């Protein structure tokens, strides 16, 4: 299977260069990584060096940080042609909803950072606009005790929604250093603790590859491809 880590933060957002992330990810069994630095911190350092690493594909995407809904739609529309992969910095209820309503967006990253999660209306919108929801397992690794319990409650509820509306799901760690990365099998084992089926979790890790392939084809309009 082609497993991709879909939401990494490299220097200057995290503490590792993209090539170090690529080496670590290759050793863990990934066939590609998508470096999604926040738009506020700027372009990742040493991208050309990362492309020299053999045996793993390094994709540069963006993570849009928006202040409100209009801001988000404008940024997504302007960045769509420049990047193969567009994520949105989720967590806030309004931003989560706006991201799900925007067909330009590929991934809603860490929507469970706040207390609310995605909710029914946003889930329906995500289904209609084919926006994938990211199950960010970073808090599961980082947090302990009450904070983690709260986070798990939100995730459990949202996984029911994802199952109900059959949404696209991706699994990531939101890593900022090579020490935050976990192997695909570890992530599957963690996701299974939430009651996610094993096959579904494996599918979720392979989904970024198929989204990337879709984005790289040249679409002239909806459903019309240029050869």
């Amino acid at each position, binding site marked *: 299977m082609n497993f991709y880590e879909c939401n990494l933060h490299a220097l200057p957002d995290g503490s590792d260069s993209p090539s170090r992330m690529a080496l*670590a990810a290759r050793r863990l069994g990934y066939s590609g990584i998508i470096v999604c630095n926040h738009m506020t911190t700027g372009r990742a350092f040493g991208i050309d060096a*990362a492309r020299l690493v053999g045996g793993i594909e390094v994709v540069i995407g963006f993570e849009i940080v928006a202040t409100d809904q209009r801001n988000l739609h404008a940024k997504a529309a302007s960045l769509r042609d420049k990047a193969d992969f567009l994520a949105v910095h989720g967590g806030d209820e309004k931003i989560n909803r706006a991201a799900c309503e925007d067909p330009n967006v590929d991934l809603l990253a860490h929507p469970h950072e706040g207390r609310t999660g995605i909710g029914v209306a946003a889930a329906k919108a995500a289904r209609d606009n084919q926006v994938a929801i990211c199950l960010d397992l970073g808090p599961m690794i980082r947090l302990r005790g009450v904070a983690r319990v709260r986070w798990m409650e939100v995730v459990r509820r949202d996984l029911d929604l994802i199952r109900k509306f059959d949404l696209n799901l991706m699994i990531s760690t939101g890593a900022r250093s090579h020490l*935050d990365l976990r192997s695909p099998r570890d992530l599957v084992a963690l996701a299974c603790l939430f009651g996610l089926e094993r096959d579904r979790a494996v599918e979720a890790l392979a989904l970024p590859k198929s989204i990337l392939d879709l984005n790289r084809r040249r679409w002239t309009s909806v459903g019309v491809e240029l050869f």
Partner: protein
Amino acid sequence: MRSWLPVLRDRRRYIAFELEAEDRVKRGDLIGEIRAAQTSLFGDLGSAENRLRMITFDGRFGLLRCTHSRTEECRALLATVNSVGGTRAAIRVRGISGSIKTATEKYIPQSILQPDENKRRVDLGPVSGSVVRVIGREIDLCPDDRKITEGSGTRYVGLTSFDLCGEDIDADGTSDGL
């Protein structure tokens, strides 16, 4: 240990793991951290069913024992370990096997390259600092500007030889030098 009826003896699996850490880690600290992660994730009741024991640990590679039916849970709890005794660390499961002998032979390499200890300076525009250690192609850098690692909670900046000399095209070397 007292002998037990063969039919009642529990079946075991041995998990070979590798510890990636920013600094040297003591065996006792690691055991404590794994125990804490275990009770935090499964509680006392679930932890008792795992029957996790540390068999060996040499500073980098180690062996854990658990019940044969609960290997996936052990994978999950090892994945939640993010720091050991105050240093950032991660546990990578290398493989699971049914006996100590096969786990050691298959998954734990016998010769380990020692990390470089020579201090060198690196200056790359946005990032500068002194090299802490080099393992294969991977380089840990102690940055001059501490703010650069703030968000991730790590002490060092992770770079590779690709970042230092861009024209290097021999890109398929194994990164851990094993």
